[in-house]
């Protein structure tokens, strides 16, 4: 009988400052009420206390997002959503047609937004123990039927706003989970970064919203990296548009090639960096570079992208060293620092981060 070589024990989860495994177990036991009850019990349990002690011990090296998340998890948060109807005008204070406690709306766009904003809230709570956009339980406010034939969605600093689409370019934007989650994530960036919406810091802002947006979808499908398509807005391209989505994180520049829209202008490498005065300095164009860097890390590490790669990116966004005017290089250095803090200096996670930035031409 042969013996298999001894496999060194898997490292203890030294990076467990975010109690996602705790929260996930709770979440799997049932609905919101169960989760809240379980959280209340956990809050006084040894598990949670020990997490808190660990967090205290590592405070000096932890990203600033770590402590509030633990604290937040102790007080069970409540998901709070509301949807307004702009009634095809630019009115952002239109009637409220759906609330958390109220009945389902007859308006299917309102229901689509409500559901997807809810899935996004769940992701932030269960994966990062984050209590809403501001970490303090801010209601998630969506506006649907904004303007007429409006081919866009946006975050205005307080609300997620969705057009119905023109039917020529897009169909209803609230029907895409990656789009809804992208807009919520701009709110998260506003509270955690912030990242100035211009040039490279603006492209990082866009990239964070794309990365977190696709992670929401992958998490809600429990999708491993190998099955992910890394597309934003797959559901909303109008019939007749030649393309597969708004953006491809894994293959920037390949999302569409259409007679009216032209070709996807996103670069996936610094060699293709676009200097322009449009689009706040190309924030939706050059975001392709950090987007692709993230996918390279995730693909290298395998498993679920929101676990290691997502944690590194999210903690980097909340890191005290991140400047509002951060360049790609500055952000890249923070991701490496965070990876080594979470996983150890010689870890495969650090190697994956270094190789990914090298792969997109960003010098560390």
């Amino acid at each position, binding site marked *: 009988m042969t013996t298999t070589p001894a496999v060194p024990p898997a490292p203890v989860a030294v990076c467990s400052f975010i109690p996602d495994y705790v929260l996930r177990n709770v979440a799997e036991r049932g609905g919101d009420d169960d989760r809240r009850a379980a959280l209340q019990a956990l809050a006084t349990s040894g598990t949670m206390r020990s997490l808190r002690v660990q967090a205290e011990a590592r405070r000096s090296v932890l990203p600033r997002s770590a402590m509030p998340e633990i604290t937040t998890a102790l007080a069970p948060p409540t998901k709070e959503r509301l949807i307004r109807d702009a009634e095809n005008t*630019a009115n952002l204070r239109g009637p409220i047609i759906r609330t958390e406690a109220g009945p389902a709306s007859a308006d299917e766009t309102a229901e689509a937004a409500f559901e997807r904003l809810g899935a996004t809230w769940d992701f932030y709570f269960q994966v990062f123990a984050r209590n809403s956009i501001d970490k303090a339980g801010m209601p998630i406010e969506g506006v649907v039927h904004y303007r007429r034939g409006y*081919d*866009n*969605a*946006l*975050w*205005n*600093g*307080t609300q997620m706003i969705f057009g119905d689409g*023109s039917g020529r*370019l*897009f169909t209803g*934007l609230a029907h895409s989970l990656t*789009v809804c989650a*992208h*807009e919520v994530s*701009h*709110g998260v*960036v*506003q*509270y955690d970064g*912030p990242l100035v*919406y211009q040039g490279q810091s603006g492209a990082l*802002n*866009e990239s964070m*919203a794309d990365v977190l947006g696709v992670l929401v979808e992958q998490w809600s499908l429990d999708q491993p990296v190998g099955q992910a398509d890394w597309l934003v*807005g797959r559901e909303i391209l109008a019939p007749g548009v030649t393309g597969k989505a*708004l*953006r491809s994180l894994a293959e920037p520049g390949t999302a*569409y090639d*259409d007679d*009216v*829209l*032209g070709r*996807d*202008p*996103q670069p996936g490498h610094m060699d293709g960096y676009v200097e322009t*005065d*449009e*689009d*706040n300095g*190309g*924030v*939706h*164009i050059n975001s392709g570079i950090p987007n692709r860097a993230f996918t390279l890390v995730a693909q290298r590490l395998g498993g679920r992208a929101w676990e290691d790669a997502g944690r590194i990116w999210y903690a980097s966004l909340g890191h005290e060293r991140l400047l509002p005017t951060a360049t790609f290089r500055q952000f890249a250095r923070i991701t490496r620092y965070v990876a080594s803090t979470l996983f150890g200096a010689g870890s495969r996670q650090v190697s994956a981060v270094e190789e990914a930035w090298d792969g997109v031409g960003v010098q560390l």
Partner: protein
Amino acid sequence: MASESSSEHVRVHFRRSGGLFAGNRLEVDVGREDLDPAAAEALDRVLDGPRPEAPPAPAGAADGYQYDLTVRRGEEVVSLRLDESGLPPELVPLVDALEQRALDRRG
């Protein structure tokens, strides 16, 4: 038509970029005579005042359109950069009209 006889010819170049989607770009060049009265009046305000205040977009706002307007009257050139989330109400009729014109051209 009245404007052509009473003053120098006024044209406005409109460019829309940004939004959630980089491919959703618009551009059009329009003479004052081709604008509806409310839009033409807004254009006059850009040239002769009182110039509308263009507040910056709210901090943290994202994915709104960026509007670049270049207005020409003879040698005079006025350029404005506006964010959708911080659009002065006085300019809404002008931006709406130009945006619609550009969309019609796109087909």
